[in-house]
């Protein structure tokens, strides 16, 4: 996976400290239900998705702060990732178009745009995000790199 030279996210947004939301308790059933799959026969997604089950630190960039939506940082649990984006479980709702920084377990930092968010239980959400500061990845199946959005957004 390619990484950018972006600085690692801090628990600050526009210079101001933000509330941190810890990872909620997640039961075994939900873990199983949201486990990311590898490539499946017939899967039309642009990029193969890889199982991931590590914690990462996400900091919202305050995309909608001017509208009155306070950004926060949160610990998230990755479920799968691809070259186009990733999915994770987390404790505070995210909104479409929100931009966030994420620091992955390998130390790399990336910027994400939220494509969708679903409530999975009390205080638990799952979101799909796309990487948006990466250059378009090399083509490996003849389709445009822009399709990464579709891959990351897919449920």
């Amino acid at each position, binding site marked *: 996976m390619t990484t950018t030279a972006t600085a690692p996210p801090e628990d600050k947004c526009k210079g101001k400290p933000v509330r941190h939301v810890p990872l909620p308790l997640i039961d075994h059933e939900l873990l199983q239900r949201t486990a990311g799959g590898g490539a499946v026969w017939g899967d039309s997604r642009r990029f193969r998705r890889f199982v991931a089950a590590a914690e990462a630190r996400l900091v919202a960039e305050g995309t909608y702060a001017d*509208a009155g939506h306070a950004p926060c940082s949160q610990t998230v649990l990755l479920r799968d990732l691809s070259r186009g984006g990733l999915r994770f479980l987390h404790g505070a709702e995210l909104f*479409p178009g929100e931009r966030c920084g994420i620091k992955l377990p390998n130390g790399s930092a990336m910027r994400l745009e939220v494509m969708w968010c679903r*409530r999975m239980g009390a205080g638990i959400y799952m979101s799909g995000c796309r990487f948006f500061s990466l250059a378009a990845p090399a083509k490996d199946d003849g389709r445009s790199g822009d399709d990464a959005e579709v891959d990351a957004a897919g449920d």
Partner: protein
Amino acid sequence: MTNESSAVAERRGFFPTLVTALIGLPELRCDVYIQPEGNARKVLYRGADSNLSIAQDATLQERGVRHLFLKEEDRERYERALAEASPPEDASVMLALTIERRRDAFETAILGGSPSHIVATAEEIARDVLQVVNHDGFAVSEAMSLLHHDKSTFQHSCNVSIYAATLAKRLGLSDAELTSLIAGGMVHDVGKRDIPGYILRKPGLLDARERELIRQHPAAGFRMVAPLGKLTWAQLMMVYQHHERIDGTGYPVGAFGEEIHLWGRLCAVADVFDALTAKRSYREPGTAAAAIAIMQGETGHFDLDLLRLWTETVT
């Protein structure tokens, strides 16, 4: 009547206007047409020089006539009269004038305007609608005969705004908040503009693909207007959360209880009430009482306190 024959006028086309709006335009001098039930052809109701007062013609109401028609060539004169009309004393006339003044501008914005233009138009309409909602003589139960006459985007958005504002007023929201809420109601379905019209107008059951397209409209609308930075979070939640259900089975997120913003919950009540009372191609408008009965039977859909308050308001 003018010299032009009615046959020529028929070819050139007519546009409909609310009877109640014409009552508020006594100075308007142009031929007014009526379309008798079961007759495709419009006939002259009142000539331009006639002194017949529409307000005093009880037969229109008795026959259930809500629209009269003007010739397209008189549109400019009609729009000028709308713009220059002095504020009427009657709340229904005020509402009808607001609808007639704003319908075309909003429909044009929704069809081809930029998201900024849609929001700006919604804000202009909000100021007019607030005057109606704040009118001493305004009663939503009486206004319904004006509000459910068609299912255009404008009419649905306008109705949802009026219903939500009427409900919010009972919760004690200030005029500034009500104006903001009305503007939010006007754009709550903005995400539907990318859905093909044949799906929105389909009278029968939707297939899975069509249902999925419909389910995307709250998030699509949010993505369209949120980046503009012109709407408050509460207004954005009207766009994003008006199909959420209090029991967590709604969409797009499945938000539960008070995770749904108050304005999102208000919008949900207003939205469903309007859907149930609006005219459809396959049925006549439902009554307020019937709509409330259905909504009360929808366990887990609505905020019960808001539904109770709404029931008191309309029945």
